[in-house]
């Protein structure tokens, strides 16, 4: 059953061959990217039934796990891999002018490969390589706009990200020096060797490294600049999809390897700080793009708080918020393509494209967490899981999350007010593109259908989260006959 490996290898093969394919025929060069993404989705759908009972463990190169690299494909990993394929397909950067189109499509295909590898891999250094691959392709895409601001914003982003990945490398060196292995399952078995100060420092370094793209509090200074300067579709991909995959590394490490309580407390504190700074910055923002960028920092802060809760309840709550954010945020960024400017330019926008404005309001309501919509259900899970812990720290975190929801409601209401203000003289707001409207309506339709079938979806997500949070079954699946190094 090699579908997951093909989901990793085929986009990369397309990326390598795209320059040659495009030279042969322009049409093929234009459509092969989306075609391979559809192929990824089909492969994922093909592999999904096989994952119901037990996750799939694929040893790369045929070498048994501790020696070689292993792909651990459980339901959560496949969910994210298919989410990447669908998200990038909807946000395919079709805006590129002709001469740049080939290179931008190549970078996008490499980004899909990297994020798929992040979702599926079960080896610590392979996660680092896929993370670097996602990082460098997102630098290329962010700076692809060609404007000076995009270049400068990407440069500052690269400085922070290189700093983070060097720290991550030191973290991996500390982990390897303590345990002698890189396979996540064997690390889970040897996790008491990492319980000491060396393990904690290794966790902090890997957290800071992976936190750069997951917009973790101290290392997310780049977010408003890059999302403001880069193309909005690229911002949608980075904020909506790639940040969740970087978060997935931290979740795997927390569940499997670093189980000391200090690690969870650090994540909780950084998550709460992220929520506070993100929501306040979004409230102060005067243009839609910066507001969406800072609100995604806040949302990811909520996810960090959720994943810092020990046990399957935390993973379930975090997964719910992550998937909901993955559905809503790219569509909002796509709408910002036309409405990205200052809020004062927005009046009359609803008159020009009423459907897009309605979708914007619906998505915003769900983001804030208004009861019938899945956004409320996700935040409710986080609050109940956090209160379930009983400690004052989590109670404080819940208070911050609720206050942040209020702030979020206020600034999104301000945007909605601008959208729906009736204007008589020539409307300054510009009309939405057809692609943006279709993606927004798809997202809203998915949101409404998720609201209707919330119970079954919630149960299957709970099973997925329980499977992902189950450490012993992970070890048993990778080493059926026990660990022989």
């Amino acid at each position, binding site marked *: 059953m*090699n579908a997951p*490996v*093909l989901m*990793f*290898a085929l986009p*990369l*093969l397309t*990326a*390598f*061959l*795209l*320059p*040659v394919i495009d*030279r042969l025929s322009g049409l093929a060069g234009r459509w092969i990217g989306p075609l391979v993404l559809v192929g990824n989705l089909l492969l994922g759908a093909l592999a999904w039934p096989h994952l119901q009972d037990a996750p799939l463990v*694929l*040893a*790369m*190169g*045929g*070498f048994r796990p*501790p*020696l*070689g*690299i292993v792909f651990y494909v459980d339901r959560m990993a496949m969910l994210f891999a298919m989410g990447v394929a669908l998200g990038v397909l909807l946000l395919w950067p079709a805006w590129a002018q002709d001469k*740049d189109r080939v*290179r*931008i499509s*190549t*970078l996008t295909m*490499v980004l899909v*490969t*990297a994020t798929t*590898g992040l979702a599926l*891999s079960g080896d610590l*250094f*392979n996660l680092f*390589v*896929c993370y*670097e*691959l996602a990082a*460098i*392709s997102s*630098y*290329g895409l962010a*700076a*692809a706009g*060609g404007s000076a601001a995009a*270049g400068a914003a990407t440069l500052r982003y690269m400085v922070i990200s290189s700093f983070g990945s060097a720290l991550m490398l030191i973290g991996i060196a*500390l982990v390897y*020096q*303590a*345990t*002698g*292995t890189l*396979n996540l399952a*064997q690390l889970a078995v040897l996790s008491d060797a990492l319980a000491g*100060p*060396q393990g904690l*420092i290794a966790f902090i370094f890997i957290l800071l490294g992976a936190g750069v793209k997951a917009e973790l509090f101290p290392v997310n200074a780049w977010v408003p600049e890059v999302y403001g300067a880069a193309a909005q579709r690229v911002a949608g991909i980075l904020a909506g999809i790639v940040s969740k995959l970087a978060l997935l590394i931290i979740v795997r490490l927390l569940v499997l390897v670093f189980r000391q309580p200090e690690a969870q407390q650090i994540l909780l504190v950084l998550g709460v700080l992220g929520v506070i700074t993100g929501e306040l910055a979004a409230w102060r923002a005067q243009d839609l793009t910066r507001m969406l960028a800072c609100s995604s920092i806040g949302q990811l802060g909520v996810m960090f708080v959720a994943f810092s809760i020990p046990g399957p309840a935390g993973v379930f709550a975090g997964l719910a918020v992550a998937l909901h954010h993955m559905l809503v945020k790219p569509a909002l960024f796509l709408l910002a393509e036309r409405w990205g400017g200052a809020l004062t330019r927005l009046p009359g926008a609803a008159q020009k494209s009423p459907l897009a404005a309605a979708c914007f309001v619906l998505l915003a309501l769900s983001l804030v967490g208004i009861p019938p919509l899945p956004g409320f259900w996700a935040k409710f899970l986080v609050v109940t899981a956090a209160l379930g812990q009983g400690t004052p720290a989590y109670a404080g975190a819940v208070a911050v999350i609720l206050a942040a929801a209020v702030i979020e409601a206020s600034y999104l209401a301000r945007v909605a007010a601008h959208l729906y203000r009736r204007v008589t003289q020539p409307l300054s707001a510009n009309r939405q593109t057809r692609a943006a409207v279709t993606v927004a309506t798809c997202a809203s339709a998915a949101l409404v259908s998720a609201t209707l079938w919330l119970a079954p979806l919630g149960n299957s997500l709970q099973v997925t989260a329980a499977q992902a949070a189950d450490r012993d079954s992970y070890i048993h699946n990778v080493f059926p006959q026990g660990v022989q*190094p």
Partner: protein
Amino acid sequence: MRRYLALLLLMLMALLLLAVAMQFGFGAAPMRVGSAINSAAPGQVGAANIVTSVVLAYRGIDTLGELAILFTAATAAGLLLGQRPATTQPDPEAGFILRHAADLLFPLLLVVGLFIIVHGHLTPGGGFQGGVILAAAFFLPLLARPASRFRHGVFGVVEALAGAAFIGIGLLALTDGGPFLQPMLGKGVLGHLVSAGTLPLLYAAVGLKVGTELAGLMAGIAAYEARDP
């Protein structure tokens, strides 16, 4: 003020790191996976250089990822550098020494680069190190005679085909039911030039790709529109 805060933070971090480092057992490598690979590699993979068998066989996906990183860096750089307007006059012709040294060195660099790539599975070195030397070989004539046009087209095609070859060899294993990137074509006699199955082919693909990519990257930076300061 910001600077002293940063300085303070760094002092704290430095102490933290040194505290951990001092009780860091140097020379006490746990060797869990390492010793298993050391004993298994000659038998399973058949390469004399065990590091090459780790790079290409046991951790082949890492090397594929790294190849993709280099490819992405070169593509993104090409995207940003763009084509140089033909109007700008090229840099002056290089001096006598550089021109003749370049003509002399070009074949030597090619031979050394190819030697290191081909002997990747026997002696230290391999695709990446040999590829860099090849890149120097391809870039040297452009340094000596900046007016000569760097044929990006040809190098682009070689680069794409070499990358596709690496993945193709990996996918070949899937055809007869084996896992991705499984070494094939038997192991041959340890230490002989033709041994360790597909490893030399993989390293040849890596070497060619790295060589052409980096030469293109360096040519792109050198040809960035020459603004006289």
